[in-house]
């Protein structure tokens, strides 16, 4: 069953979403939601993924959980879940 979720878009990616902060997407898992986001906002997936995995400097959360602890791209979603995308704050 495909879930409908809301996705919070960080400032740096809002040029892809016509400056919308909150968008809606559907999918059974995070990979499917990212594919749906990319269909709506072409180019967005490339900013989130690298060689088929989450980019190191992007954090994605399902509700309060960092997806890296719940299966990353295979994290299962249910309708009403809230996804937050945040660029890592890091450097050298």
């Amino acid at each position: 069953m495909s879930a409908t979720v809301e996705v919070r878009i960080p400032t740096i990616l809002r040029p892809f979403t016509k400056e919308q902060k909150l968008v809606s997407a559907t999918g059974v898992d995070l990979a499917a939601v990212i594919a749906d986001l990319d269909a709506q906002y072409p180019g967005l997936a490339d900013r989130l993924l690298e060689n088929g995995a989450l980019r190191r400097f992007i954090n994605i959360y399902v509700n309060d959980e960092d997806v890296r602890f719940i299966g990353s791209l295979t994290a299962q979603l249910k309708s009403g879940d809230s996804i937050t995308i945040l660029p890592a704050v890091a450097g050298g």
Partner: protein
Amino acid sequence: MSAATRLRIPQAMADAILTQARAEYPNEACGVIIGRDGIAERLKPMFNAAASPTFYEFDPKDLLALHREVDDNDEEIIVIYHSHTETEAYPSRTDISYAGEPGAHYVLVSTREEIAPATEFRSYRIIDGVVTEELVEFIL
């Protein structure tokens, strides 16, 4: 959002950042300044999850909590700062590749020994890989 060409920061906040940097030496120290309408209002030191002399990273859970707090209060992150402990206060290649907040001032401080007891406190915009240094105005 227009990029300001200068950072105005209360002297006490700048002093607190340098104090934190010295306290966390030899690891890099990091944190944010939160405010509204571009005005720096409150300092929030963050835990360096990398605990390293050459790298800093906000813990992903802390980062989410920070954004929730800022959103709930209708605030914004004005400054993201960290310290360099052995090099000048200029963004490293890693700093530039990670910089993901085009609206923030990136402050770097240096506590390197060769300039002690002096320190450096400098501010930059980092947008699409381009670093632009800006004036820092210390206010009361």
